[in-house]
């Protein structure tokens, strides 16, 4: 079979918007076991009230271990922070999540909006 093409990746690209609270908030359900999920970018939007710290964590397959991925991201009230900082590319993800894992966000106070872009290595 031919390798997946850039066009196919574009067709698979998903964009999800979530409200991250002070409790761990999942970006999506656990990744299907047969897939690998490539996270292309995460964009965090300030809450226009106060500076917050944002934590991005991966829940491992054991269902109990949270592995920090991006820790204490400083987010000023009017700011927008994008990961990766220097441009995004669908073929150069910032993170890959194997089947059975999840990605969570948490904020130090109030709640913020976050947008995550990802694609899966299989349909």
């Amino acid at each position, binding site marked *: 079979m*031919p390798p997946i093409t850039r066009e196919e990746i574009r*067709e698979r690209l998903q964009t999800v918007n979530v409200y991250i609270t002070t409790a761990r908030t999942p970006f999506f359900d656990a990744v299907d076991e047969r897939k690998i999920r490539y996270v292309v970018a995460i964009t965090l939007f300030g809450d226009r009230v106060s500076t917050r710290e944002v934590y991005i964590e991966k829940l491992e397959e054991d269902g109990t271990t949270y592995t920090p991925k991006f820790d204490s991201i400083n987010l000023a009230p009017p700011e927008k922070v994008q990961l990766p900082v220097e441009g995004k590319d669908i073929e150069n993800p910032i993170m890959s999540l194997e089947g059975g894992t999840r990605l969570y966000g948490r904020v130090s106070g109030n709640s913020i909006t976050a947008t995550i872009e990802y694609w899966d290595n299989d349909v």
Partner: protein
Amino acid sequence: MDGKGISPIVERLLLPNHLMALEFREGWLFARVARRRLLHYKPYSLVDSLGATINIAASSTRAEVWLRDPRNFKNDILYLDTTTDTGFPWILHGAIGWKPHQIFVYPRIPEGSDIPGKFPNIDPIKPSAGDFTGYYSGHESPYDEPTDFMEYVIRPLIHIGHEFYNQDSRAHNPVANILFALYHFQLFKPTLTGVAPQNRVIRDIALRHVPAAFLTVGFTSHPLDLGDTVIKDWDAVPIALDQAQALEVG
């Protein structure tokens, strides 16, 4: 493609004067392409029997449909409604590229029959469940370059059906590039006892003494039958490969 047995269909299509052996359930026919016409329908947007665009919801199936002409949805694009044309037998040969690639396509040849291309020792394929076998998609047969991953050889008077499953989390309308060659061909007639003029070319094809395409009409383990009407109209004499190899040529 990567040279591992999957080729763009344009590399498989025949030219005028090319030889071919056609496998049917009753046996093999041997022929020479007299005329060839390339046909494509691109882009082809899947429609239902009322001509409405088929938009398959996320993780949903679409029951069997013909590939109908959106301009006159009573017509099946892949149907030859007569056995011969301008004095020649004719046949369609080609492939279909699909997009988006998250749509799984399950062909039925002929319509309503079992889905071809499954492993011999597994249960029947259920498109309604989005089974991960027995399908092909725009990954195996890309829209811009249809491949022989699913190679269609369609005789007259037969309809081909397709079922679909959308593996994506968004709704999609399947869009195809239907790329075929229409062959008008000269059928060689074997004579099983004694020497006859066309025995030699038939034997040479069967023995691989001359280059020829071997095409199965239908699917490998289930070649289609010719049927009484086609046999009569084509004046066809299907024979086994062993018989073809043993023809007397003088």
